[in-house]
């Protein structure tokens, strides 16, 4: 007998699927997608494109994180390693090896994937809390290596990252051009994430999340699926980090620090673990909060802590998670 019942952390609501599945979305999600698209189109006329692009990168990062936490049931505390190293490798290859936009991003993605494979292979041996602690420790190790390695530029970071061009045509030095590209990438990734979650692969992941032993008894190689999910999550995180590095034209130590890892966790928690649009909502809120508190220094950390505590105690399922439950529909 144990003191606590282990309940799945994800929001599990069941809803009958209707026939109408535009782009693979359920009706509720379709409208959320429409809303998000409209927001992407309209937002830059209201807020700074650079600020928005930062949010979008974090949305992609959170989508990657949510794939692992919300849909596979694995809580990693070391995702900064993938995001940050993706940022570093994208930045470095673009700045020093002459990689173009596409190649540099590919570099970041592959870096994330490879690192994810290594981390995953070590960490998957344990589950739950141990898994979280191990990923945290591994990421810390990466941080310390980056702190000392010459190629990261230490405290200065990797600077002078060129924006480059997209497909040789679009000049990405123009913030607006870049914005439309990044916005399109974001929307594509949301659609993609929805498809992955509802694919047979995604269904196996959810089976593993809900009851790993049952999945195993059904014949699935649970560890291997976990590793796939982990690598996918890491690769997408690396992509997101790389994108951010190109937008801001710099990669720094903050990107591989625990701060970035906990950012991903916080965003996912606030938005709603195990929801498709949770990362969108979560990023908007968390990043805006940080942006407006930034001038007040340590208040950012304090507020993040309070938000964490509040959401764990009261809004455990995150904003979309709670709304999802209330309206009995999946978001």
């Amino acid at each position, binding site marked *: *007998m*144990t*003191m*606590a*019942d*282990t*309940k*799945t*952390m994800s929001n599990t609501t069941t809803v009958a699927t209707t026939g109408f599945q535009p782009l693979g979305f359920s009706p509720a999600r379709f409208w959320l997608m429409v809303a998000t698209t409209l927001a992407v189109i309209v937002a830059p006329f209201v807020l700074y494109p650079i600020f928005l692009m930062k949010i979008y990168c974090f949305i992609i990062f959170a989508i990657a994180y949510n794939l692992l936490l919300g849909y596979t049931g694995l*809580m990693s505390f070391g995702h900064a390693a993938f995001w940050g190293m993706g940022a570093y490798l994208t930045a470095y290859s673009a700045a020093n090896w002459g990689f173009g936009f596409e190649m540099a991003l590919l570099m970041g993605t592959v870096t994330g994937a490879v690192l994810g494979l290594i981390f995953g292979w*070590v*960490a998957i*041996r*344990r589950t*739950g*809390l*141990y898994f*979280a*602690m*191990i990923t*945290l*420790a*591994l990421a*810390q*190790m990466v941080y*310390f*290596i980056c*702190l*000392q390695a010459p190629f990261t530029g230490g405290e200065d970071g990797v600077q002078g990252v060129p924006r480059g061009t997209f497909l040789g045509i679009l000049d990405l030095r123009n913030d607006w051009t870049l914005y439309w590209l990044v916005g399109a990438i974001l929307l594509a990734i949301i659609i993609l994430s929805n498809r992955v979650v509802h694919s047979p692969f995604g269904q196996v992941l959810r089976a593993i999340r809900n009851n790993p032993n049952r999945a195993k008894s059904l014949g699935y190689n649970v560890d291997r699926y976990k590793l796939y999910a982990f690598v996918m999550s890491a690769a997408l995180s690396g992509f997101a980090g790389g994108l951010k590095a190109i937008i801001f034209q710099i990669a720094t130590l903050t990107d591989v620090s*625990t701060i970035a890892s*906990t950012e991903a*966790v916080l965003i996912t*928690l606030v938005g709603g673990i195990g929801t498709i649009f949770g990362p969108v909502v979560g990023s908007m809120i968390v990043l805006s909060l940080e942006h407006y508190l930034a001038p007040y*220094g*340590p*208040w*950012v*950390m*304090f*507020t*993040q*802590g*309070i*938000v*964490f*505590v509040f959401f*764990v*105690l009261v809004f*455990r399922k995150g904003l979309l998670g709670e709304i999802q439950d209330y309206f009995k529909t999946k978001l």
Partner: protein
Amino acid sequence: MDFNMNLILGQMVLGLVNGVFYAILSLGLSVIFGLLGVINFAHGVFFMLGAFAAYMLGELFGIGYWPALLLVPLIIGALGLVVEVTLIRSLYKLDHLYGLLLTMGLAFAIEGLIRITFGPQGLPYNIPDSLRGAINLGFMFLPYYRAWVVVAGIILCVTVWLVIERTPLGAKLRAATDNPQMVQAFGINVPVMLTLTYAAGVALAGIGGVMAAPIMSVDPAMGTNIVIVVFAVVVIGGMGSIFGSILTGLALGLLEGFTKAVFAEASSTVIFVVMVIVLIARPRGLFGKMA
């Protein structure tokens, strides 16, 4: 690589000092996890608060190091009691990871608050007069204060171990870790035991903070910096083994010191490397009881 014997021994002795802090903190973390099922990310922050409490006692009331050693654990313990009752208690029925999330949030909130109040820089705390000076060990001059930390720290850890493993009170704790429902069915108020255990665990961290103050300077970041290393220590030692936590903490401190002397660049990562190796070779940790 540099194999200067004096340097190596010297760094290892200093590493042992760090090891004592790892042992004290991993001990508390392990006991709290074993009984409450909560990974107390806030453990580092209570360590930091211990140091700040010592600092404040000195600044505001002129209370020195020795009385602080007795008062601070009471203060931190009281704080821990409040935290367990108000925040952590509601999480026992949930997935264990919520405990980690909550305590992480708590750690950020508290560290943020300290930073807001005191600023980001470290504050000085003086070595008590009675422990000033150093002893010549031949290969190094060992400050009396650090020798004190090692001796007192080890005695503290061994005492806690003895209480847990060899007394009826400790038997209740161990039994409740095995099967809390049954222990309660025998007439022991287990919820109260949980609260007191959390309070005692973080009070231990607080004592560590007082002992660390003269060495590490009183710094808001000292909690989060050390807690991740302590996690690695616990993974290596194996959760559930008090003896494992103590031994592993001390050993890793020594290893860190050795590495600093021989291959300085790796000293901050060596513990994590050991963790990876142990995870591959023996996933449940060196002394771990649970699979």
